[in-house]
């Protein structure tokens, strides 16, 4: 066989690629304006309870408390 002959592998891979692309081409998509609006909405709804954004008082954040002293 000549070195240019396509192997069964190449053919299989090409078939799989085409099948995968057909699947991806078929999915339903929404506009970025709508997708973005939903992302913004989610942030706005949850931001007030995001400790790293709102900051929580040292007394409530175990990591901000001073480490307890140990008596040796």
């Amino acid at each position, binding site marked *: 066989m000549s070195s240019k002959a396509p192997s069964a592998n190449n053919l299989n891979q090409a078939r799989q690629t085409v099948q*995968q692309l057909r699947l991806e081409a078929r999915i339903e998509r929404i506009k970025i304006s709508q997708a973005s609006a939903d992302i913004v909405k*989610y942030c706005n*709804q949850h931001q007030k309870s995001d400790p790293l954004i709102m900051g929580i008082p040292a007394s409530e954040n175990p990591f901000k408390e001073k480490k307890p002293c140990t008596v040796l």
Partner: protein
Amino acid sequence: VQVNPVKSQPTTSPLIPEMATQEVQLNETLAHLKTESETLKTKLEEERAKLHDVELHQVAEKVEALGQFVMKTRRTLKGHGNKVLCMDWCKDKRRIVSSSQDGKVIVWDAFTTNKEHAVTMPCTWVMACAYAPSGCAVACGGLDNKCSVYPLSLDKNENLAAKKKSVAMHTNYLSACSFTNSDMQILTSSGDGTCALWDVESGQLLQSFHGHAADVLCLDLAPSETGNTFVSGGCDKKANVWDMRSGQCIQSFETHESDINSVRYYPSGDAFASGSDDATCRLYDLRADREVAIYSKESIIFGVSSVDFSLSGRLLFGGYNDYTINVWDVLKGTRVSILFGHENRVSTLRVSPDGTAFCTGSWDHTLRIWA
């Protein structure tokens, strides 16, 4: 897209040897498939472009800007003898598991910085570790090509290695692992180019995921409300979204210019972020089926090793190979803070389960808790 059926076989002259005929037919089929491939790719880009009516940061123009942030190192966890490669939080929001090039896996109490457990793996470069949802076990692996589960004993003197259970077997290094929503199943990604879902008890392979063209470096499970999918990123510059039940790749994104080291779902499950060796983080929306934001600066030229969102998804934290952490406003696309402290690459970064702090691991052998 109208698909042209493969041409019917040409009539052959009795003078042409059979093999040459077959070769011609195979060549035609391959050529047809390649043409169809290209046509579909173009069509995909056209469909995605049609929906590109606005940028995320434009929609977010009216959103109030974030104030100044004061985030500092609150704890430093010292104990590893070499580069920290991976870490994960326990659901109790205080325990952490970390793994290192020195072959050790350590469980820490992050409040007190005490080490609660330590296991020595039979290999170096333990690149992946994960805490079980129950808090009663940890999983880890790396150059041994396996993912093993260690039940955590209450008895600190007990030898954890004795109870080790080998779960996953890949044909190349384990790059990431994650329990699903129970202690019973583990999802893994590997340098062998595949991801796989395993039953912990039996070690049985439940599903494998093929599609990446090179090493898979990272994965993240969708938040449980959004169903059975996960995203993976790899050296082929692709981020793939998979259906866990069928093994099918449902969406694929290829806009990064280099390896994708980290992927993380946005808390709503409708999008995910990625971090890459191309020094950018990107946000991909799953319903729009495209990249919707890039987080980059000309001054940032080192790769991103790890990304995670704050609880609301408004902030994106990125750990970089230039030893820093950059904090991004996800909506506006701007950097809000840069954090210094580590003395070598930041290799891993995770926000705590209740969002009160985040932890970073570094090649400087330490872990830091920031709040």
